[in-house]
């Protein structure tokens, strides 16, 4: 009897752990897919973290003011698009170093969000907003185990899980996807065949910026119901590693992101179960895991042929010898 209930308990704990992990997937998944688009077009945006923080604030603020989650996400999306537009202008048009500008974008996003938070909510305890509620999908949610894990989640979880195959389809099965990848492989060749290198890079970066901002907004609107400038907590940097581990493929990103979200939720569980454990060590887990996986990948195989050849290089049409 006692053994039986222990078994049940384990099952419940496991299901709820996995279910929490799935609920934690959208921030990683959205930002990773967005960054995959940017990198497939040949531009690396290491400022994802900054865009996520700004997105988190704007999402929170939009919903706080309007009491509408949709307005929150829209506000975040606009903010992300604007920051990405700035990044595009400086790298694609002005040919500035992508790493330097990306770092700048991180500081701008992070700083702007902190500043706005300070002047709009001076002092006192930060206000709370309602988090997204789970929407059980009829019939499917009644399936044992999977029903709880996959089909009793909030709407953003569903949408971001659906986004992965759609993003992969566009990237690998359509003319525009082929053009995007050609621009990331060899912009000179693409340009000589009439592919619009500049527009595609702008578009991919902006899509990436919008998705990163939505990812950040989800942390405020879907997970914590609050904003703090530490809300993103390095996830935007982990995303840069996840893109590599996914081999620049949105479908593989789903698995990779699930694994990292599982670690995230284990760490959160652990923290509440053992409040005395050093949280800094636990918080390191996702970073350590990313590094370990990257090293293993490097040892086992090579990422060379999947990496866009022209990644992180700007393209200039030249009239020099």
């Amino acid at each position, binding site marked *: 009897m006692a053994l039986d209930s222990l078994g049940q308990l384990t099952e419940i704990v496991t299901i709820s752990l996995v279910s929490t992990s799935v609920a934690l997937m959208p921030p990683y998944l959205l930002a990773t897919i967005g960054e995959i688009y940017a990198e497939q077009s040949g531009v690396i945006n290491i400022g994802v973290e900054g865009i996520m923080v700004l997105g988190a604030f704007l999402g929170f603020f939009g919903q706080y003011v309007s009491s509408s989650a949709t307005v929150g996400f829209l506000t975040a999306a606009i903010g992300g698009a604007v920051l990405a537009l700035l990044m595009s202008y400086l790298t694609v048009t002005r040919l500035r170093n992508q790493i330097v500008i990306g770092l700048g974008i991180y500081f701008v996003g992070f700083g702007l969000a902190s500043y706005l938070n300070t002047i709009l909510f001076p002092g006192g305890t930060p206000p709370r907003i309602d988090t997204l509620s789970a929407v059980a999908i009829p019939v499917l949610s009644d399936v044992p185990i999977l029903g709880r894990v996959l089909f009793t989640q909030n709407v953003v979880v569903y949408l971001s899980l659906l986004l992965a195959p759609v993003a992969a389809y*566009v990237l690998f*099965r*359509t*003319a*525009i996807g*082929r*053009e995007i*990848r*050609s621009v990331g*492989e*060899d912009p*000179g*060749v*693409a*340009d*000589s*065949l*009439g*592919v*619009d290198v500049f527009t*595609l890079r702008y578009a991919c970066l902006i899509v990436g910026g919008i998705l990163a901002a939505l990812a950040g907004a989800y942390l405020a609107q879907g997970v914590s119901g609050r904003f703090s400038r530490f809300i993103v907590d390095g996830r935007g940097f982990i995303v840069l590693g996840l893109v590599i581990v996914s081999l620049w493929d949105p479908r593989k990103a789903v698995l990779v992101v699930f694994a990292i979200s599982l670690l995230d939720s284990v760490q959160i569980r652990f923290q509440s179960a053992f409040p005395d454990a050093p949280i800094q060590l636990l918080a390191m887990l996702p970073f350590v895991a990313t590094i370990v996986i990257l090293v293993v990948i490097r040892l086992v195989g090579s990422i060379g*042929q999947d990496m866009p*050849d022209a990644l992180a290089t700007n393209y200039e*049409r030249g*009239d*020099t*010898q």
Partner: protein
Amino acid sequence: MSHPLLEARSVRKEFGDVVANRDVDFELERGEVHSILGANGAGKSTFMKILYGIHRRTDGKIFVDGAPYNPDSPADALTQGIGLVFQEFKLIEPFSVLDNITLGLDGATFDDNSARHREEIADLSETLGLGLADRLDWRVSELAEGEKQRVEILKILYRDVDILLLDEPTSILTPQEVDEFFGVLDRLVEEEDLGIVLITHKLDEALAISDRITVLRDGDVVGETTPADVDSETLAEMMVGHDDVASVADHRVDHGEQDAAMTVDGLTVRNARGQVAVDDVSLTVQDGEIVGIVGVEGNGQTELARAVSGLLTPDSGRVDFHGTDVVGASRKGLQDEGLLLIPDSHGVVEEFEIPENCILDDYEEYHDNFVIQGDRMRSTAQRVVEEYSVKIPGLDATASQLSGGNKQKLTIGRKLGDENRRMVVAVNPTKGIDVDTKRFIHDKLVQERNEGRSVLLVTTDLDEALSICDRLAVINDGRIVSVFDDPASVTKQEVGLAMTESESR
């Protein structure tokens, strides 16, 4: 009154102070191959890039079918019926053949347009005899070089061009692939009525395939002729502009019996992958002698050169330089001993300015308490540039602004400025360089020899080896398979055979 398919009048192109095309006239009719022949740096590629919309001409007029032609990008040139196949293929290696051909065709849509074109592309490949119909789903990286070139041609012809520009198309092909390729060109002009412009520096090729030949030199048209009216000697003279094409070895100086500058004994070297690249090689180079090591690329000659000049540590064997065993000595140490290395690729730092490039070997002599002496550095550079007539836009230009030949002149000028030098190891010193600079470099190496120093010339260029070497060793599969003590009396065929015959051990 019908117009030529393509007509260029007084086309001029300047890059800063350098005039790449001075006054180029050119005409092309439908159904002909018109070659542009010239040494490297003659302005062939510049002219081609103007036609393809990469460069904008400084002056002059171009007409296609009588209408003014001013392309502002390659994509624009393609839509106006002119396509260029580059020497280095413009293909996306991880993409399939089909995706490479359809890229950019129907705009950035959300449907899969490749499938729609598949059949037509396969048909066109069959019509032109390109043999790619069953390779459309292969990744380009899986194809042989000759096949990649045909993908390029198919890609461009599928875009309905009338004029096909080919930039040194045979340089990466095997002799057999060259024959196939010429067969394709014949079909294109005879059956498809295209106009083809072929850029080359190979005389036989121009004579074999062309209807007309235009020779460029120093950015100017030297003349237009047909293969029927000209022979290769005349063409060579038009290209080079010198009367004497005699071998440099004619003014050989006899130094009598000399000391051994370098003795290599039983040298065995492994390459980066751990395979034996140099297999038990012994040889001697005397003062006042140019010894050539010839071989087909990849037969261990690079490793041999690196091992004797201090860049690779051999597995076993001895290398004596003027009586001292130098195995394990560093490049820098050997250089201080007077053993210079002219490396395989241009020995310049592209981003550095010319003066900085001129002191790369002995920079430590150009500073004063950690501060570089700019004036001394510049005067050294000035001397190198003048002595070696390096064509530069200005002393402050970076090496990346120089042509290949001028980079090499700068490198050699810098190296041979070392007054303590006793021996030069040169690896393919004239690879990819125009005929003029080539002669110049040969003269310099011969001068080294004539002044009593020794030269080890490692080269894949058989003509070069035969024209300036006093002794010639053939390396094949890491071994010295033959030594010719009197290259003047050897035929090219004999040496070529030794280079290519397998399992001659």
